[in-house]
């Protein structure tokens, strides 16, 4: 495990990890002093690659930025490194605690991705509705990831990529992340299915042509698995074979 995680240092500084791997790596970084120094060096080098990209920005950009800055409050410095949240009243439960750290890191990355995605939606739709939706979704994703009973499991997807699920029985909700799957055609879409004794029920359809996304699944119920299939854009009412991956959510 250790060597495997260290091998991610290069991809990490290049921002070439998916959300889950990044979370795992950052959790490891917090416990590994050697890595921290190593990463700092690699980062300095990586940032130099930006030197190869000079391009004069549009002239109005500076005024826009300065105007935004003049009405934006800065963050307080006192909250620096709030990651190690004390986990009081929890008896020694190494696995659970480790997961909480992972969940905290995962939360940051997933929430950032979701916020970015929703920021796009926001332009397309009614701004206020979308903002409410964004906030609600981000809050629910955060709640699932931070839940004390959250369970994490991941499986490879046939053809490539990974399907990862974080589920909380107490919240009856889950967060499912599909990452780096094979790029579907523009008129196909990945669809997620909640599978219980009664059969599969759609748990969400990804945007057509998307090879990955983060999906909040409400009402997990008695489902044992989340399955993944490729469907026509917009999704189907029943899964089309083959099932590309199933990840347990119990």
């Amino acid at each position, binding site marked *: 495990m250790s060597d495997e995680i260290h091998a991610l240092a290069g991809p990490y500084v290049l921002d070439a990890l998916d959300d889950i791997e990044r979370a795992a790596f950052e959790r490891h970084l917090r416990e590994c002093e050697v890595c921290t120094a190593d990463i700092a060096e690699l980062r300095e080098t990586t*940032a*130099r690659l930006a030197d190869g990209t000079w391009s004069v920005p549009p002239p109005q950009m500076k005024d826009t930025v300065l105007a935004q800055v003049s009405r*934006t409050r800065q963050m307080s410095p006192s909250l620096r490194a709030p990651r190690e949240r004390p986990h009081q009243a929890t008896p020694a439960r190494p696995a659970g605690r480790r997961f909480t750290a992972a969940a905290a890191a995962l939360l940051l990355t997933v929430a950032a991705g979701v916020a970015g995605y929703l920021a796009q939606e926001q332009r397309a739709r009614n701004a206020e509705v979308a903002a409410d939706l964004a906030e609600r979704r981000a809050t629910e994703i955060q709640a699932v990831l931070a839940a004390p009973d959250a369970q994490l499991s991941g499986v490879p997807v046939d053809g490539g990529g990974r399907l990862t699920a974080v589920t909380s029985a107490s919240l009856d909700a889950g967060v499912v992340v599909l990452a780096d799957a094979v790029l579907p055609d523009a008129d196909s879409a990945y669809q997620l299915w909640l599978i219980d004794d009664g059969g599969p029920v759609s748990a969400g359809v990804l945007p057509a042509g998307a090879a990955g996304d983060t999906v909040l699944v409400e009402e997990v119920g008695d489902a044992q698995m989340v399955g993944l299939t490729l469907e026509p854009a917009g999704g189907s009412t029943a899964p089309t074979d083959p099932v590309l991956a199933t990840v347990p959510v119990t």
Partner: protein
Amino acid sequence: MRARDDRGSPRRAKHLAPAPEAPSDQASRLLHAVARGDEAAFAQLYDLVAPRVYGLARRVLRDPAQAEEVAQEVFLEVWRTATRYDPCRSSATTWVFTIAHRRAVDRVRSEQAGADRLRRVATPEPAPHDHVVEQVTARLEQEQVRRCLTELTDLQREAITLAYYAGYTYREAAQLLGVALATIKTRMRDGLARLRDCMNVEVRA
């Protein structure tokens, strides 16, 4: 780790002696002032790094309008979080470009998950040429980066370029280059190590 937090170290002073103030020191000084809410310092910091923040966003996203949006987000984040910048962990410019790259990559992944990303790499374009005049110092720095990149093996260079300039994950890069995941991870890592050596040599010369 090098003592990059004591900016007046003899090592640095020696290498960069002729400059009245090394740009990296200037950035650090300005960022500290920004952390105290100094908007004038922020404007100066903007001038210092904006061509690279915008250029990086543009390189990753290709679309000038999106690049501008992302660059604006980056500057707002720099302003908001300058209070939490930790000089022990990275130099000021590295901190800014790390934010910029992350934002650009986040945008490309959330928005361009479709086929056009594959197409962009399948037909590799030369580095985009801007119709604007580039500053002389900028060109020198670019040349150093370009020259150091050419000293890498093909696979190292392709792996780093796909990840950094095109925003691909290492899994995507491995798929595009037809190599094993373990190989791509290693090539990214040792390619960066080689770049570091190349760039350090330049500084000492």
